[in-house]
């Protein structure tokens, strides 16, 4: 049974094999998670289709094309005679290995490092824990693409480099017999290689960007460069929404099994405002303006691997509780790596809530080809004037970033003001929707 990188979406052509959960030769049960793959859109787990013994063909950390066979499962039924454990191990082979310790051997197995990859610096060539960590550090610096092709490259193992730090440290104390200029000529290659000198180990760490991170970076830069983005601000008084939530909390929880948050109100408010300002819900395609007669609202959710923006379809037809449930379902999918490409596609407008992290004010960035994005922020009691009196009210700053090519300032400001009004007087929303 071959294990292949599956088709995960139209535009996805390659994936990073991020991690094998099972080791080569391990027995796997049906549906056991085998490995994690990362594409530029999502990460997902591949599970075993059958029970058997796993054979790994592609090492983790490798980027492979969709459809590539990365391993196979040898079904147990095919080979009833299980291989025997070797209780009388190969002494002669082991004698060739440098001396280590039980804990070190365990660590080497965990990290898939063979003893001959590590240079032992202890008594009689013994491998010490420091030797192992040095090797791990070194391995992490190798570019991932070259790793599977050239396995035993050991740049830091050549005597010149290995001895450099020790002798370099002695340098100030011991007067060098050779003229200093000569030493400087001889040394640069040893000390100033691309690897940081060993004494600087740990001051910085270099790791390859994951496909998702790369994709995020590309899209953010593109949004900046290809649109005329600017941001307008307003603020909303959440007194009424808070009251409504408070009075309906128990009831809502009982009926729908989920707590009522702020997000559904904002989704609703945006949908109503979008209806009044159709350009905010539109996009530019070449020389055309595409107006959308549907309201698919992207909700930015921060995941471990980066930000993703799953889309609420036809949000105009959703009830408050349905919106709340849909967002909870997305969060769960992100946590368990089950988000599908389809969940992320389309979207006519987005909402980003920096408030959950405590942001007071920010300028969200567009998610092209969408033309606008609403930024929500933290709710804080602030002094405001009501009926000539200074009173404390739960306030939130709102930001709308928009593509000025398509949306005029008047429309943007009007849209945001509309959202503010709906939030401040949610009854209107409820009557509408």
């Amino acid at each position: 049974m071959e294990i292949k990188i599956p088709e995960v979406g139209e535009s996805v052509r390659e994936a990073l094999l991020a991690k094998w959960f099972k080791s080569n030769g391990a027995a796997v049960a049906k549906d056991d998670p085998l490995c994690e793959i990362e594409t530029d859109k999502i990460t997902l787990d591949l599970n075993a289709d059958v029970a058997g013994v796993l054979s790994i063909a592609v090492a983790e950390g490798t980027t492979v094309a969709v459809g590539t066979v990365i391993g196979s499962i040898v079904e147990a039924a095919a080979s009833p005679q299980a291989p025997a454990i070797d209780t009388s191990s190969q002494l002669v082979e082991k004698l060739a290995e440098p001396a280590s310790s039980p804990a070190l051997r365990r660590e080497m197995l965990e990290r898939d490092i063979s003893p001959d990859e590590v240079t032992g610096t202890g008594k009689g060539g013994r491998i010490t824990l420091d030797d192992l960590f040095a090797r791990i550090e070194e391995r992490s610096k190798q570019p991932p693409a070259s790793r599977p092709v050239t396995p035993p490259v050991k740049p830091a193992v050549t005597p010149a480099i290995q001895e450099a730090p020790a002798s370099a440290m002695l340098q100030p104390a011991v007067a060098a017999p050779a003229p200093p200029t000569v030493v400087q000529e001889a040394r640069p290659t040893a000390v100033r290689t691309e690897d940081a000198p060993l004494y600087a180990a740990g001051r910085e760490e270099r790791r390859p960007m994951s496909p998702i991170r790369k994709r995020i970076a590309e899209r953010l830069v593109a949004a900046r460069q290809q649109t005329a983005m600017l941001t307008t601000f307003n603020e909303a008084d959440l007194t009424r929404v808070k009251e409504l939530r408070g009075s309906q909390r128990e009831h809502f929880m009982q009926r729908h099994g989920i707590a009522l948050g702020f997000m559904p109100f904002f989704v609703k408010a945006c949908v109503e405002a979008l209806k009044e300002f159709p350009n905010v819900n539109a996009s530019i395609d070449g020389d055309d303006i595409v107006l959308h007669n549907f309201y698919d609202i992207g909700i930015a959710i921060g995941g471990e691997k980066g930000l993703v923006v799953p889309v609420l379809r036809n949000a105009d037809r959703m009830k408050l509780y349905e919106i709340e449930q849909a967002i909870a379902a997305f969060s769960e999918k992100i946590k368990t790596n089950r988000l599908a490409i389809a969940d992320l596609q389309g979207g006519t407008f987005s909402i980003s809530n920096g408030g959950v992290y405590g942001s007071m004010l920010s300028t969200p960035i567009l998610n092209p080809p969408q033309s606008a994005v609403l930024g929500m922020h933290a709710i804080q009691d602030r002094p405001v004037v009501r009926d000539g009196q200074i009173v404390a009210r739960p306030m939130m700053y709102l930001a709308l970033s928009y593509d000025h090519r398509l949306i005029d300032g008047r429309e943007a400001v009007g849209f945001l003001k509309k959202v503010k009004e709906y939030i401040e007087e949610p009854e209107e929303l409820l009557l509408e929707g």
Partner: protein
Amino acid sequence: MSETIFDLIVIGAGPGGYVAAIRATQLGMKVAVVEKRAALGGVCLNEGCIPSKALLDSSELFALARDKFALHGINVSPPQLDLGAMMLRKDDVVKKLTDGIAYLFKKNAIQRFQGSALLRGKDTEGRHRVEVAAPAAEGQQNLLDAPADTVTLTAARVLLATGSEAAGLPGIPFDGQVVVSAREALSFERLPEHLIVAGGGYIGLELGSVWRRLGVKVTVMEMLPQILPNMDRQVADTLYRSLRKQGIQFKLGTRISGVRRIGSKAIVEFNDGTGSEEIDCDKVLVAVGRRPLTAGLGFEELGVVLDGQGRVAVDADYQTSVPGIYAIGDLVPGPMLAHKASEEGVVCVERMAGQHAEVEYDYIPGICYTWPEAASVGRTEEQLKDAGIPYRSGRFNFAALGRARCMDESEGFVKILAHQESDRVLGVHIIGPRASDLIAEGATVMSFGGTARDIALMCHAHPTLSEAIREAALDVHKEAIHA
């Protein structure tokens, strides 16, 4: 019935099973243990390692009081044996230790099911089913067990740790009274007049020693021309001489062909190659080996494959030919030792949890608890010769060691075998006082890939028995100080 779905079902609560169960709960698994006996701990705790060591220590003290106190200037009237009290103490030691495991089970929330287990294939969810039949009716116990006759447990993984049982002599079945296994030989109610031990391995020699020290006439019959065939030859020969000096009689190269019972006595027919002979005795301890307990578990129905020797074939994960079914300890190849089973149990469940654990079979020590004790780790001289590995040997006799002299324990020696070129320690063999504890240094040094020179350079306290190890290491390079 309480919850019956588990992450792991362990069958057998011996040193392999109970240790695996505890480790598995530490790793977050929900674990059930099925055990036939009322007491946990398996053969090791109930009728093996622990009760035999309790009796070895008691009988050793008795022999010391009788034979050696006078040498130390302690005059006592000849000590009287109270065999009943000695047995009660042994039972008490066993009970304390098995209760200790029950406590550990409670502490780790391991669910215990008493009864015999039968593998019943998979349920619709793909989990293995294990049917537990309550133990056969035994007086009042039956009342407790009656309501739940059988219970079916399910789990994604099942770990078989049923261990082994004493193998009999062909054509001479155990009868529990005259022809007995180690279990009965640990609980004789009165001293036999003449005990014949069939088998010159660890078990036979240890139990033979117990009864010999208490004054019984003991004859060991061994089919091979030597005792302890897997031990280093020099060690085995030294032990052979020492045990003979203690009064144990040996008939080597001898095959027992039949046992005739006459009342509570028996006549053993044997052939030592020169013709058939007969000898009177009242107990025959058969200790010719152990065989894995694979019967009655439902192996055939499920397709669990055995190897040529009747042991369960497993892969590096200890998984059998049936995915999700694992086996460790005496069921699988390797020496039948409690500590080997425990080691495999831990490694097996750690690998289930995705850890890269491995049993390092090269560094598992083996011990024969006679007096002097014999202990070894690594290769014997014979094995190194066979494998063509160049080595040097260093040896030091306890007779030249201050502490051993003080203890009046001057028999035996330490032998260290090191690689000719790398000086890596390949084997440590000890016969002498407390060899069982001394061998730990050998196992440690070998695990760390140490050399004879390493041992020689480590300071050993004076006066201790451990100095013999250092001197033997020095002797590898012919630099021993006291030899």
